[in-house]
Structures are given as structure tokens and as C-alpha cells.
């Protein structure tokens, strides 16, 4: 009798495994769809975040580039308008790099060498760190620590020994903790005091230089100075140790002219008539008219032409008024003189009439009224005609078929009043209107630029929110990363649950398979493979969905600028990463259910429910 030999069971080829798993998935399509949905949602979440982050990074980059000229200009305006403040100096010093333009300026103004400036810069950096820390504490703690001093003032406020002792005590009572020890803070305070005179020297130097420049430029406004920025101005600035790069000169001049023109145009909006017309044109309430609406209107060719025409019209009106008003005034004066004369005459006629009526009564009594009656009738007639004339003079007369219109005094007065008012409202802005020499093209350009800047600054605010804190992964805060991690965890638990149900449902099938010769390893691989296949499907769907969602969200945040910055070349990589994440998550989730399945005793197949 031959004993059979029992060998290790052959393992199933991978393709056969896939085939079996696929037919299993096809049979339980609905459950598989749920698992795929869970995975695709988690992957979509990740993919959305990644897409948004990439877009935000690129948009931020572009905005930096596009707003740079404007920022350079604003920076120079503020530098030329007002002397450097202590606060600004601290910020500049903390960020100053050696041999940069600011470094050279400070060295020249304060008459300092490199090592002194390095010390100043170091102090400023430490100052910024502590200032940041204290700013995050909140008012309730700042009051006991520093009294009224805030921001940069605290370093001065704590110089007194008593003040510092109080600060230290409060600091201990509040049980606060800093990154550094209090001793180091105290060292900074003394360093700050030691370097105070040097900072003062820089500030003084800056102030003197500015005075020099203002004197040379005849006290002109900063923007005006910059609008005429030329090599001469640059040399003047250089002589006073302001370092203005030659390549910035043209850009600053351009920005200054844009800014000045925008101001000129905004000046027009003060005129009531412009406001009224704009409200009509936009179909808006008068109260709602504001600068953005104004610029929006005139940033189109039609709007620009409208404004140009309106200004021309206003200018004509002013000229007309200049001619009309004196004539009107003379006319009114003339008519008033005439009215006064008429008044006198009517009074005399009335007295005459009274006298004649008495005479008439006398004559009637005498029995001979003939002559007296005639004289009286004549007097009455004359008074009536004088009164008619007076009426006509005052009220005027409408034009009829055989008679032209006669302007009455009342009408004339009213018109004079109206014109005087118009003149009063237009005259103060006359300089604005007369000197308004911008072509429609220029109006359009300036307004568009202004709107573009506004839009960019809005996007910049959004981007800086999305871009988040420095040092965080892909620009995401730890909170967002935590959210992603939790979503993955939920996803894993969800898939594990679905797989576990799948295993429980298939106890008999699994046990039967084991009776038919399936090894534990095969069962395990079978379930993990099933999960992985679902993970792949979910990953692909999720990557697509996430990309679309991320794009839409970016679109709503940054407008069309987002479309120009879709990270196409990164998308393939990102999608791949997302998909791998999906597969790994589902494989992980399947381990425990697969283990349960593999451990199942084959005799379960015999059991009858």
C-alpha cells in the first residue's frame, strides 16, 4: 500500500487571484461602491487641499511680482512724506541684510560701522521676538505687566528698576512662560538701552536728510516729487543718503503719475452733478455711490468717454455762468429799480385817485359832476394800467401768438439764485475741472489699474490666509493637517467596517474555500487584494474629484488668476500620491478583517444556520 505524500499546497498565481477577486467584487457591487466612495472622499479631501495649496503658492508668487512696483512706490512715498519712526526702524533693522540698501542708509545717517549695525540688528531681532510673544498675551495680562505701554514702548517702559521689578513679579504671578529665560529678556533690555543713542542717531540723520530734500523740492507733496522723479532727484536723494535704485526710478515715476491721475479723477466725484449723473448711469442710489463704483464705471471705454464729455460739459457750464451771472445780476438790478419807480408812481396815482373821488363827491353834491367824473375815470384808468404793468414786471408773461415771452422779476430772481448756487458748487472745484486734461484712454488705463490693484490686494489677503503660517507642511497649519489625519482615520475605520461586514457575510464561502484547498495566505491576500482594488478605484475617482473641487475653490477665491496657475505638471504627481494614499489606506484597513477571515476554521462550512 502506497502512503500518499502530502506536500505544501501550491500557491495560486496572482492573475488567478485578481480574477477571483474581481468576480467577487462584481457580485457585491453595491458594498464595493460604498467602500470606493469612502476612499474617494478621503482622497478627494487630500487632493483638494494639495491642489489649493499649489495654486495658492503660485498665485501668491504672481501677486508679489505684480504688486512689487506699487509697493516700492508706496514705500518711497511714506519715506519721503514722513521721517522714520522708532517702530519702523526696529522692523527694518530686524529684517536688514548686510550690504543691502537700508543697511547703507542707516550706516550713513547714524554714522555707524558694520559691527555697530550688526549689534543693532541683533537687538531688533530679539526685540521683535519678545514683542511678538507679548502681543499674543491679550489685554488682561498686558495691563499688569506694562501698564499702558504697548508694542515697542514696553522696552522703554521697563527701563526703570522699579518698573522692571513690578514686571518680573507680575510675570511670576501670572505664571507665564517664554521661549527664553527672564534673564535673557533682562539682557535685551540693557542692550536696548545701550544702543538707544545709536538708534536716535539714525532717526536724527533721517530727519535731517528729509528736511534737506523737502527744502530743495520747495515743500511739494511726496507723490508730486516722485511723479517727476528723474536722475536729478535720484542724485539729490543719494546726496542725503537715500538709496534709490536707478532701475526703480522709471517704475516709481509711472506709479506716481497713475496715483496722481487717480486722485484727480477722485476729485471729480466731490462734484454733486458728477455724483448725480453717475447714480443715473449706474441706476444706483445716490448714497451708494463710492470710489470703487466710480472706477468700475470709467474703466470701460464708454465710461471713460462719458467722464471726459461730462468734464467738458461742466467746463462749458462754468464759462457760461461766468458770462451769464453778471448780466443776470444787472438785469435784476435794472428791473428792481424799475419796480421801485413803479411803486412810487402807483402810490402817487392812488393818492390822486382818492383826491379826485372826494372832488367827485363834492361835485355831485353841487349838482354838477360832469367834469369831475371825467377826471376821476381817467385817474382810475391810469392806476389800473400802471398796476397791470407792475404785475407784468413782477410775474412776467408766457409767450402767446402775438406777443413774445416777458421774463418777470420773480423768475429772474429764481434763476439767478439757481445759477449762483451752481456757480458756488462748481467754482471751488474749478481748478480740478479746468486742469483736467486726461484723455479717455488715460482715464481708462488709470481706472483699470486702480481696480486691478484693489483686486490684487483682496486676493493677497485670501492667499495669505490659505498660505498660512511659515514652516507648516505645504503651507497648512497643524490644525488642517490634523483634520486630514482624522479624515484618513475615519476612512480607515469605515473601510475596516465594510470589509469586516464583507467577511462576516462570507463566513460560509471562506470556510468552503478552505475545504476546497485554499490556504490561509490565499484568503488573506484575497481580502487585501479586494480592498486594494477598491482603493485604486477610490483613489482614481477621489483624485479626479479632488482636483475638480480644488480648482473650483481656487477659482472662487482668486478668480481667473487661479486658472493660469493650475499646477498641471504637478497634478500627475499629486494624483499619484493621492491614489497611493488611497491604496495604502484601504490595504491597512483590510489587514484586520483579512486576518479574521484567514483564521476562520474550515469546519464553519458544515454549520447550518
Amino acid at each position, binding site marked *: *500500500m502506497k*502512503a*500518499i505524500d*502530502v*506536500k*505544501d*499546497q*501550491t500557491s*495560486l498565481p496572482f492573475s*488567478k487571484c485578481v480574477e*477571483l477577486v474581481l*468576480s*467577487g467584487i*462584481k*457580485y*457585491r457591487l453595491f458594498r464595493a461602491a460604498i467602500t470606493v466612495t469612502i476612499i474617494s472622499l478621503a482622497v478627494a479631501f487630500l487632493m483638494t487641499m494639495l491642489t489649493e495649496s499649489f495654486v495658492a503658492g503660485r498665485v501668491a508668487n504672481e501677486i508679489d511680482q505684480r504688486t512689487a512696483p506699487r509697493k516700492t512706490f508706496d514705500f518711497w512715498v511714506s519715506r519721503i512724506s514722513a521721517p522714520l519712526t522708532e517702530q519702523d526702524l526696529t522692523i527694518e533693522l530686524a529684517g536688514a541684510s548686510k550690504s543691502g540698501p537700508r543697511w547703507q542708509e542707516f550706516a550713513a545717517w547714524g554714522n555707524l560701522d558694520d559691527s555697530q549695525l550688526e549689534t543693532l540688528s541683533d537687538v531688533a531681532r530679539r526685540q521683535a521676538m519678545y514683542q511678538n510673544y507679548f502681543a499674543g498675551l491679550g489685554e488682561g495680562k498686558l495691563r499688569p505687566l506694562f501698564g499702558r505701554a504697548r508694542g515697542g514702548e514696553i522696552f522703554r517702559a521697563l527701563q526703570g528698576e522699579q518698573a522692571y521689578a513690578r514686571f518680573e513679579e507680575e510675570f511670576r504671578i501670572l505664571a507665564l512662560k517664554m521661549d527664553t529665560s527672564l534673564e535673557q529678556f533682562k539682557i535685551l533690555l540693557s542692550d536696548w538701552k545701550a544702543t538707544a543713542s545709536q538708534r536716535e542717531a539714525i532717526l536724527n540723520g533721517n530727519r535731517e536728510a528729509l528736511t534737506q530734500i523737502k527744502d530743495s523740492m520747495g515743500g511739494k507733496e511726496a507723490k508730486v516729487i516722485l511723479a517727476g522723479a528723474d536722475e536729478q532727484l535720484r542724485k539729490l536723494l543719494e546726496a542725503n543718503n537715500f538709496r534709490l535704485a536707478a532701475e526703480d526710478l522709471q517704475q516709481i515715476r509711472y506709479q506716481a503719475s497713475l496715483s496722481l491721475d487717480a486722485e484727480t479723477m477722485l476729485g471729480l466725484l466731490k462734484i454733486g452733478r458728477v455724483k448725480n449723473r453717475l447714480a443715473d448711469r449706474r441706476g444706483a442710489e445716490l448714497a451708494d455711490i463710492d470710489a470703487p463704483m466710480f472706477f468700475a464705471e470709467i474703466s470701460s471705454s464708454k465710461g471713460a468717454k462719458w467722464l471726459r464729455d461730462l468734464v467738458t460739459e461742466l467746463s462749458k457750464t462754468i464759462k457760461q455762468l461766468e458770462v451769464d451771472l453778471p448780466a443776470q445780476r444787472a438785469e435784476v438790478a435794472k428791473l428792481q429799480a424799475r419796480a421801485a419807480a413803479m411803486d412810487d408812481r402807483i402810490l402817487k396815482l392812488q393818492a390822486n385817485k382818492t383826491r379826485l373821488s372826494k372832488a367827485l363827491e363834492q361835485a355831485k353834491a353841487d349838482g354838477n359832476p360832469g367834469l369831475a367824473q371825467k377826471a376821476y375815470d381817467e385817474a382810475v384808468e391810469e392806476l389800473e394800467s400802471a398796476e397791470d404793468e407792475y404785475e407784468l414786471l413782477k410775474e412776467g408773461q408766457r409767450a402767446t401768438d402775438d406777443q413774445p415771452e416777458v421774463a418777470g422779476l420773480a423768475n429772474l430772481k429764481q434763476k439767478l439764485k439757481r445759477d449762483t448756487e451752481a456757480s458756488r458748487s462748481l467754482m471751488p472745484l474749478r481748478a480740478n475741472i479746468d486742469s483736467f486734461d486726461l484723455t479717455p484712454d488715460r482715464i481708462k488705463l488709470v481706472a483699470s489699474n486702480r481696480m486691478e490693484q484693489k483686486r490684487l490686494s483682496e486676493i493677497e489677503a485670501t492667499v495669505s490666509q490659505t498660505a498660512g503660517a511659515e514652516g507648516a507642511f505645504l503651507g497648512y497649519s497643524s490644525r488642517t493637517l490634523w483634520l486630514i489625519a482624522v479624515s484618513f482615520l475615519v476612512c480607515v475605520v469605515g473601510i475596516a467596517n465594510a470589509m469586516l461586514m464583507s467577511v462576516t457575510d462570507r463566513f*460560509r*464561502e471562506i470556510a*468552503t*474555500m*478552505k*475545504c*476546497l*484547498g*485554499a*490556504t*490561509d*495566505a*490565499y484568503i488573506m491576500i484575497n481580502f487585501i487584494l479586494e480592498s486594494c482594488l477598491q482603493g485604486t478605484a477610490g483613489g482614481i475617482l477621489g483624485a479626479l474629484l479632488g482636483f475638480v473641487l480644488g480648482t473650483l475653490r481656487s477659482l472662487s477665491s482668486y478668480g481667473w488668476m487661479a486658472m493660469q496657475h493650475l499646477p498641471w505638471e504637478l497634478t500627475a504627481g499629486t494624483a499619484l500620491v493621492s491614489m497611493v494614499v488611497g491604496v495604502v489606506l484601504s490595504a491597512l484597513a483590510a489587514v484586520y478583517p483579512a486576518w479574521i477571515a484567514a483564521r476562520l*476554521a*474550515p*469546519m464553519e*462550512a*458544515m454549520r*447550518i444556520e
Partner: protein
Amino acid sequence: MSEQTQSVETQAESTEQPRAVIIRTRDLKKSYQMGEVVTEALRGIAVELYRGEFICVMGPSGSGKSTFFNMVGGLDSPTSGRVFIDEVDVAQLSAVELAFLRCRKIGYIFQTYNLVQYMTALENVTVPMAFAGVPTDEARDRGMGLLEMVGLDDRWFHKPIEMSGGQQQRTAIARSMANNPAVLLCDEPTGNLDLKTGAEIHNILKRLNVERNVTIICATHDHRLINMADRIMWIRDGMVERFADRSDVTVETGSIGGEENE
């Protein structure tokens, strides 16, 4: 009845025929720990079953019949004692070797058929062949042969849900024969079937036993099947109560209704 009862040992000694033993158990014991209580399912079973035998196992539920089946089928390991299948000690086998054994040496037939629901009849039949590493083409040909044997070759593309209980069980028999096993373990194969369909299954089993010399071990309550058996084993309270040749047992199979034929 007691004079008809023979212990397995005495039978083995007395009949010195050179018959090949396919399954041999030695003092087979199995107990289950259920909380504090220890249930003794098998209390020392020692039997020898010969190649080509048709054996019916009888016993009330809870008698340890199922436990005995699991032991003999290599599905569970005994608490003590030994099971030899074709002179191989099952206890000595690793999990992977057990899978090999279950795949090629034993065929299982279940009361509930246990076909894989999402596979066609042919796919179901070829599953054990896939596990045995048979190439796909050969597996298909052999599978069709097996389906033809049970009379289902024209329904090879049907899914279990599209088949009657009898057809499903016939497919299951075809599957159990996939790798030409030496032993067929049938657990109430006709328990869920009507009499006529049950009779068809009985015939197929008998044919396999006769034509292919397959050892058939069959748990059943069906007297017609007992009638076909070579030997009948009674299990009660975890012990072999009686083990007798068919000729020594009176089995009455009557006909019930007009539909019964044989």
C-alpha cells in the same frame, strides 16, 4: 442485536483480508471548553475504514457525529488520539500541508451545497483545480467531464441561483471530485432535498463508489442511502455505539406515495 455488534478491533483481527485502510482513528477524543464547562464531544473512537467502502454514519444530533466528521476530514484537530488518512498522521501536518490534503485527498459535500454564488457551475467545479495548480484549459476540460458525469454539462454556465437544489448538489458533487479525491465526506447530502431528487444524488454517489472506487463516508438519516451502504456506523454520546455490515442490519425502505421509485 448484541451478537451482531462487533468491535472494530475484533473485526480487523478476524477478517484478515488484505484490504487497504484509508482512514484509521486511534482513541480519538475531542473536548470543547465552553466557559467553565468542558463538553466531551468524542470519547475515544477507534475505527478503520477501507478504501472503496461506502459507509453511513448515523446518530442523533449532539452525538458527536459532526465532530467525528471534522476530525476525519482534516478540518479540526483532536484533543487526543490520532487520525491517519491514507497512513498520514493529520496531527503532524502544517496548515499549508492540511490545505494540500483537503484539496486533493478529500472531497466535501455539504447539506447546504455551499457553492460560490457568483460563479457559474463550471467555475465552481474548477475552483479546487485552481488551488491544485491545474492549468486553466485542462481544468475546464476536466470540469466539463465532471459536469457531464453528474448530467449537468448543458448547464455549465448557470449560476447557483439559477439552479434547483438537486442541480446545485450535483454541481457540488462534481466539485468534490475535482482533484480525484480518495475519500468523499458527505454531511447529510440529501437533507434539503425531496425524495426523488435525493434518489438521484444517491445514485450518483453509489456510482462514484463503484466506478471510481472512492471511499464514501456519509452522515445521513435517509434509510434508502443506508440501504446502499457497505457498513453502517452508529455514534452516540461520543462513542461508536455499533458498527455493522449492511447484511447484518435490517433496513426497511418502503415506497411513499407514487413518486418514489427505488
